[in-house]
């Protein structure tokens, strides 16, 4: 915007057009319009203002008045030109009717095709109405390219004002990376733990404690939780949005229960999709080795006050490796394949209608169908979910003071089973069905007290109904969760802000209310830097699986199993409790320079009550006396011992930090690097002798992680990126079957350090509407595992073609 301010309008238009390509924000259109106006190009200015109005901005009426004035001005100018002798035919630009469905509109440059800048500027300046209208833009010159986050406090704000450590993956990051798996996009961020366990499934955690079926973070899509309640995890391959639908991904590190309740234990990942009506429609197709296929189509439009967006996609992902040789005669593949990891189609529709200036109603729904594969917990290893159906229906009401959001998530897989089973053994077949209905009502009050004190208050209540039918549970279970929350943010001048949060969650399984407070203090030593201190707690409630488990697990003896039950074999009063984390965090961010940005955080976490499979308890005669039927007819197995879930006696002291730098040395070149330190001390002081005898040191989180990358965009249309990731060694304390002792027990499994190099090169053509690109994942090709039982990851390459209207 400095170029506009300094009257370098042509340069400004060029910059803004590139900017719009990267981030198609409506305000950019306004500013292009403004620059065109200053340059005297009224037609282009009108076209851009009109396109800006399509986004239904708050100043739509004012902009409409401006357009009216400009149009009348243009008519007068054209009439004046018509009355003069024509030295040359009318310029093409003069008669062009801009197509509002395209990007920013600027007339082809040429001395005869537009009014002289001085004339135009004088014309505009000479019209008092236009002059007034142009003043509107002054408020729009600041925040267009300012990154905005909403996840850390439920309201749009700069990351510098976020009360928790927050990072963003932008649309540009996504496009330039060439990655089509959403969780894989997060690998570039500091403090993020990524574990690609199968071709389809990647586990994500923040600041450690990743695991098979990761359950320490909450994943949201536009604020809607996509947590699968029976597993307590996120099935990324079952999301209804493709990478092309994403505007940005916000990652909030640290406890999030104060805002989002249970399950936002170590952080929140919020996927913000492109708003209905914004951006172009388009399609992309990609094909790679092992028949990896990615297809995506999206359309967006606006009819009056109604804007909509529709997305559809197809993904086929092969397994990284086979668990068993095809020559094996002792096993069967109940899932029918040891090559496919994911085959899904997805549909997603969102619409929003404005009702007046400050009220909008949004409706949406989605459907995902197909097969996908997970690495299960404990001895339940490789699981295939066949004929998976995941749907949602969402409705939102947004107004200045009241926000109401409801959604219904449905998940079912009529054919869930192990991928491999010994001949004659059942493959833990089941058909889970999960329904979640969620409603949240929020009252927002923004209050300004004098010139230097502003208060932002959010008070809300929420209700969540859950129903899970699953053969792994004792019976169909339903739960009713209620919660109330408060978020208050006080800005005291430009230099200081205080944030306080409190959320109270009633957890029906535990039959009590769990409070989750958070307090933050933000100090701004300068306008573009922040020192942030945070104290927060969070909890993770037991999942349905952990709460109501009822499952017979096969052992290496043919007809003997482990009965896994949450209640059977022990007193109901001793059931599993919630996991807890307490965090202290100190962060510093600096965005002062246009050349480099800096973000850092240091934290200490105390984690207690991690839920794990409990040490085995033998089946006793007392269990038989109480009526336990040790023979499980469906599996043809006799129970030998009990297992289930309990809270680990060991606690964890975690100290660490993240340090991130991003350089912008010149136009089109971004370089980033970040480092993550995570030092874990296992505290066994609360463990008894029998527990200590079974324990292993758990060092599943790498102490060091490094991410480095470079992104290049050229004027010639050639783009490229290289991302390098290094993960230091890990030692996983996993519970495995000891065939000799016929029981589950901890085993320390070491994972070697690994590096990952991803690269993409692309070429934009046809006026940047089309793009071809090639992407290599793990380009070095060093095979590695990211979990001791995970598939072996090697190199994959893919070609992609994208066309945007």
């Amino acid at each position, binding site marked *: 915007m400095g170029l506009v301010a300094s009257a370098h309008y042509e340069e400004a238009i060029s910059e803004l057009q590139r900017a719009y390509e990267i981030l198609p924000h409506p305000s950019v259109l306004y500013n292009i319009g403004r620059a065109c106006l200053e340059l005297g190009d009224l037609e282009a200015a009108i076209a851009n203002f009109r396109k800006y109005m399509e986004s239904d901005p708050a100043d739509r009426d004012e902009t409409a008045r401006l357009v009216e004035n400009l149009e009348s001005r243009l008519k007068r100018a054209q009439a004046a030109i018509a009355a003069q002798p024509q030295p040359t035919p009318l310029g093409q630009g003069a008669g062009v009717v801009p197509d509002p469905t395209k990007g920013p509109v600027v007339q082809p440059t040429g001395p005869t095709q537009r009014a002289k800048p001085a004339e135009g500027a004088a014309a505009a300046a000479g019209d008092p109405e236009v002059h007034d209208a142009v003043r509107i833009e002054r408020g729009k010159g600041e925040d267009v390219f300012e990154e905005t986050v909403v996840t850390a406090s439920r309201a749009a704000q700069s990351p510098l004002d976020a009360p928790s450590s927050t990072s963003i993956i932008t649309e540009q990051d996504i496009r330039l990376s060439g990655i089509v798996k959403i969780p894989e996009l997060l690998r570039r961020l500091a403090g993020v733990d990524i574990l690609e366990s199968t071709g389809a499934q990647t586990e994500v955690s923040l600041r450690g404690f990743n695991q098979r079926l990761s359950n320490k973070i909450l994943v949201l899509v536009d604020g809607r939780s996509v947590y699968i309640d029976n597993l307590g995890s996120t099935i990324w391959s079952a999301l209804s949005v493709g990478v092309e639908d994403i505007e940005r991904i916000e990652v909030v590190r640290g406890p999030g229960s104060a805002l989002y309740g249970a399950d936002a234990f170590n952080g929140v990942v919020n996927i913000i999709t492109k708003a209905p009506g914004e951006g172009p429609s388009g399609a992309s197709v990609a094909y790679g*080795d092992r028949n990896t296929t990615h297809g995506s189509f999206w359309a967006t439009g606006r009819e009056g006050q109604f804007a909509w967006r529709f997305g559809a996609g197809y993904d086929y992902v*092969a*397994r*990284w*490796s*086979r*668990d*068993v040789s*095809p*020559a*094996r005669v*002792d*096993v069967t593949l109940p899932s029918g394949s040891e090559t496919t990891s994911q085959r899904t189609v997805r549909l997603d529709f969102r619409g929003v209608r404005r009702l007046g200036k400050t009220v909008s109603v949004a409706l949406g729904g989605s459907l995902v169908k197909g097969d996908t594969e997970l690495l299960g917990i404990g001895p339940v290893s490789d699981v295939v979910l066949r004929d998976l159906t995941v749907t949602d229906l969402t409705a939102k009401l947004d107004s200045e003071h009241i926000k109401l959001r409801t959604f219904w998530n449905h998940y079912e897989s009529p054919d869930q089973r192990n991928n491999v089973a*010994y*001949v*004659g053994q059942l493959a833990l077949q089941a058909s889970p069905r999960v329904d979640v209905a969620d409603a949240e009502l929020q009252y927002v009050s923004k209050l300004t007290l004098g010139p230097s004190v502003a208060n932002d208050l959010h008070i809300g209540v929420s209700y969540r109904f859950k129903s899970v039918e699953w053969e792994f549970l004792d019976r169909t279970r339903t739960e009713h969760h209620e919660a109330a929350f408060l978020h208050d943010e006080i800005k005291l001048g430009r230099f200081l802000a205080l944030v306080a949060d409190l959320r109270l969650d009633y957890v029906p399984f535990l039959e009590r209310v769990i409070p989750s407070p958070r307090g933050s203090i933000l100090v701004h030593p300068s306008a573009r830097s922040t020192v942030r201190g945070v104290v927060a707690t969070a909890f993770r409630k037991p999942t349905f699986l952990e709460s109501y488990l009822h499952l017979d697990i096969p052992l290496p003896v*043919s*007809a*003997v199993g482990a009965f896994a039950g949450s209640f059977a074999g022990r007193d109901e009063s001793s059931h599993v409790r919630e996991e807890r984390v307490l965090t202290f965090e100190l962060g510093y961010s600096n965005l002062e320079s246009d050349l480099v940005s800096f973000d850092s955080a240091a934290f200490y976490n105390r984690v207690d009550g991690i839920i794990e499979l409990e040490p085995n*308890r*033998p089946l*006793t*005669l*007392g*269990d038989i*006396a109480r009526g336990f039927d*040790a*023979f499980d*007819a469906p599996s*043809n*197995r*006799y*129970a*030998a*011992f009990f297992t289930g879930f309990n809270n680990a006696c060991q606690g964890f002291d975690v100290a660490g930090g993240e340090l991130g730098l991003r350089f912008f*040395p*010149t136009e089109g*070149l971004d*370089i980033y690097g970040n480092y993550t330190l995570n030092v874990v001390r296992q505290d066994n002081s609360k463990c008894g002798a029998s527990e200590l005898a079974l324990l292993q040191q758990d060092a599943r989180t790498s102490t060091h992680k490094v991410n480095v990358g*470079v992104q*290049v965009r*050229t004027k010639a249309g*050639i783009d*490229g990126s290289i991302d390098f990731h290094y993960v230091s060694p890990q030692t996983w304390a996993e519970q495995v079957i000891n065939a*000799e*002792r016929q*029981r589950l027990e901890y085993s320390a499994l070491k994972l070697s350090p690994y590096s990952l*190099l991803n690269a*993409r*090169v692309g070429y934009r053509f046809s006026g940047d509407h089309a793009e071809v690109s090639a992407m*290599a994942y793990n*380009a*070095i*090709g060093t*095979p590695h*595992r990211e979990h001791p039982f995970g598939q*072996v990851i090697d*190199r*994959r*390459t893919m070609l992609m073609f994208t066309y945007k209207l």
Partner: protein
Amino acid sequence: MHRLKTATELAYASLFLVVPALFVPACGDLRVDESASDRPPSGVIRGTVLYQGPRPCTRDGHVVGNAVLLLFDRANPPPPLGIATTALNLGVVAGDVLFANEPRVTGEAIDCPADRNDTTIVRASAPFTVSPAAAGSYVVQAFFDLHGEFLPTFKIRNLPRAGDVAGGALDTADALAHAADPSYAPKFLPVDVGLAQPLAEGAPADTIPTFTMPPAGFVRDNVSVTLGAVLGLPRPYFYAAGSEAPAVAPAPTPQNPETSFDPELVPVLTMPQDLQLLAPPDVQTPDNVAAYQARFPGLRLIAGVPDAERAVAADPAQPFHFDVASKDSTAFAVFRDGMREIPEGQGVPKLWPTVVLTKLVDDPGHAADRQSLAVQGSSDARKVSSAAAQPIVVVQGLTLAQDSLLTSVLSPPSSSPTTENRADHVTVLVRPAVVCFDPRHVDRGGVLVTPHLTGPSADPSEAVPKEGKPLFDVAAVKMGMGKLVRDVQRGCLPLGRYAINAVYPSGQAWTVPNEAGSCEDAEGRVDDSTNPGACLGRPRPVLRSQGTRAVVEIVPAADPTTCSALAAADPSLGADGVPRACVALSVE
């Protein structure tokens, strides 16, 4: 700025030069990586269960009970053919599957046609699969659990009962030919899984080869398991006299030391590790034989359970399900094993039930094996301890007829379990000799260890050489015990607690201590104030007669110089005089 521009150009150049080289596609078949799989190559045994016997019991629309297939190491089958105490693997064919076409009652009460004197014989068959199975050579013993009592993890419910239909993968022609012999031991056919490795040069022809699992796994098909022998006897339920009551004026033992003394661990019988017997008299007068018998420690095993425990033990609502509803039904069937004699000969007949003592894992702290259930060298031992595997150590008992060796010799019972041969108790002489086996190679035979090979004669008038009279004929004993003993060695007996097992030729057996007599860790401690007792943590009755007192403990030598002298004379013995083969396994 110039420097920055140069750097930018370099970055562009390197990016566009390097990136294309990275896009070489992966090719070839999908990588196979079994190293992290929890399903390593394994064996599958498939075949058919053929049943011929009484109609099954039904309840609630289902057949009660299952066909149970127990896989034992062919080198070490269970008694009476071997010394195995636990099956290596288990297979199940559900009764509903085996008897898919049998009518069944829908009520909650169990309906057993055989109990209604329905003598109809039905035939049924169904396929079975046992997997995963490790490489090896197996014998498959099987039975149909008619009343649905089988539970593999409890000694008290893991073997067939009266009425069950027994069999296995066996030589059916041979079995038919011996159908009238109550002491007949079926010939089980080998079921091999994996690839047999060549035998060492010069190895005996009947040596069982080592088997390895091929990388693709192994399927052993077409195994035929026949069930057709209805078991007429109940399991030989018993308790050792003295075990039903708390110890009186107990003396600490090495396994129950003074520092952690527990009255529930006081053994019913102790035997010094250097016990000296008398040599059998040349002239068998009642006095001589009585004198000979008197030197043996004697165990009195009483059939069934004490009267105070009977109702609880037989109560269907309790978990024990002992078949001891009446004294008559629980009496021992004491009968002769054909015309066989004990290995020592001397005209002493071998009688059923045979009694074998099996050494339990050493557990002086009473922490690892609180219920005294884990037999040293067995898979049970591995469940309670991660220590290195140890030898299996057994003591062969000598079952007497009417408590008398003389009677056993002069008036032995017949060789069938007739009504006249029933006894409410048996006396068992405990030989001061152990056989130590390497559990990996039981088929190679064990080492018989005894503290003395000679001694004074039971006949005081008999002239005996200075070095003493041989206690038994070593060659005859080796021959009499077949492949079970490969060598006889003089040494002190391994200290420790020994469980007591009584076995019938059908393989039906009973063991004390067992789960009924004490409480698991998770069940808490035993309430001593009641009879029967009770577990205090997770309440259920405790049958004290089946508890941790029901063991024979071999205690230190009466004369400490005996063992040290033996150790000094034989380098294959440890410093305590116990052969190393009885303490630790050789390194392979």
